[in-house]
Every structure is written in structure tokens, then in C-alpha cells.
């Protein structure tokens, strides 16, 4: 079974600053994928970024990047130049056989103007 842990229930960041959200996971799978999803107040789950575990290079998507430390089973999300629209719940997730996602408990990100 996989487990995903997000140790920060809430984080806040000043607009235009950088923030890092933490995530650790545990899995017995040798082949797996990691994701960050954003859930704004609209409730819609939106994929922010994904990382294949077999790739050493950290994934980046515009202002979003990850720090993937496979040995430490750590997968943090860095948001640069934070914008008001980044305010949301952020969920870290891992996929297992059958592509079923195991989610962390979420981090609520607040962006201060």
C-alpha cells in the first residue's frame, strides 16, 4: 500500500514571493508516478505537475517546479512568483497499479496581496 503525507496543513506566501509545499511518500512499487493537484474553491481538481519516478530530472511547468528526492521519498512543490490565483488546496498524490491515486491530506495555500 502507498501512503502520502503532507505535513503542512496551511501555508501562506506574499504575492510575488516563492513558497515550497512539502510531501513525503512511501511505496513498495518500483515504478510509480507523483503528482501535485490544485483544488481552488470551485472544487475542480487541476493537475499542476507530474513526475515519473524513473526520471532523475525534476519536472517544471512555468512557475511550478518540484524537488524530487527519490532516496528520501520526498516530492516538494515550489511555486515561484506567487499570484493571487494560486490560492487553493494543494494535494500531493502518487499513482499505483491501476492508476489509482493515493492522496496526501492537502495543504491550504493562502496568498497575501
Amino acid at each position, binding site marked *: 500500500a502507498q501512503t502520502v503525507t503532507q505535513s503542512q496543513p496551511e501555508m501562506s506566501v506574499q504575492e510575488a514571493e516563492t513558497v515550497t509545499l512539502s510531501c513525503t511518500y512511501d511505496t513498495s512499487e518500483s*515504478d*510509480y*508516478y507523483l*503528482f501535485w493537484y490544485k*483544488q481552488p474553491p*470551485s*472544487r*475542480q*481538481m*487541476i*493537475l499542476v505537475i*507530474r513526475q*515519473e519516478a524513473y526520471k532523475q530530472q525534476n519536472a517544471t511547468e512555468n512557475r511550478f517546479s518540484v524537488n524530487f528526492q527519490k532516496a528520501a521519498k520526498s516530492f516538494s512543490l515550489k511555486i515561484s512568483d506567487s499570484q493571487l490565483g494560486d490560492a487553493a*488546496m494543494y*494535494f500531493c498524490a502518487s*499513482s*499505483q*497499479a*491501476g*492508476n*489509482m*491515486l*493515493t*492522496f496526501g*491530506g*492537502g495543504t491550504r495555500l493562502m496568498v497575501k496581496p
Partner: protein
Amino acid sequence: DTAVSQTPKYLVTQMGNDKSIKCEQNLGHDTMYWYKQDSKKFLKIMFSYNNKELIINETVPNRFSPKSPDKAHLNLHINSLELGDSAVYFCASSQESSGATEAFFGQGTRLTVV
């Protein structure tokens, strides 16, 4: 066009009733899922289904059952609703089931049992 759509968006019902939530995807995906998000925002897989296999999370009560009339639809039936079933239910789909492809989510259905 909405990729994954669920109906209804909100559902309020009494304890003991039977209800269904519909889900349709127009992405041509092979695999569909149901997730439950509780009041503390915790998301948990309930079912994974493609045309070959249904995988059930063992913690899901058998009052919950997925029904798929075709590849584009995976409806969720809930019998004898209980107060604890109140949650947001998300349908999702992905191209295949290896974990390599992105899952697309519907907008969620907020179920309130009174």
C-alpha cells in the same frame, strides 16, 4: 466541452434513500474512477474500472456500487444512505491504467444526507 461531467452537482437526500450520481467522459479514455472527499478534504479512491476489470477499495461499503453502461459512463449507486456518506464525490478518467497518464476529474458532486 466538458471533459468529465458529473450530475448532479449538489444532492440533498434523507437517510435510508437510494441515490445515483452520473458520470460521463468524452475523452475516449479506457479507465474511470470514483473518489470520495470527506469534510476534512481527505481524498480517497473508491473504485477503478475499465472494460476488463473492476477494482474496489476494500474499505468501501457494499452499499456503494459502480455501474458502467458503456466505456464513456461510470455511474455511482448508493443504497440505504447514511449520514456518514455526506461528502464530495469525484469522478475521474485516464487514458489507461498504468499510472503514466494524467487523470482528469469531474467537478464533483456534493452529497448531503440529512
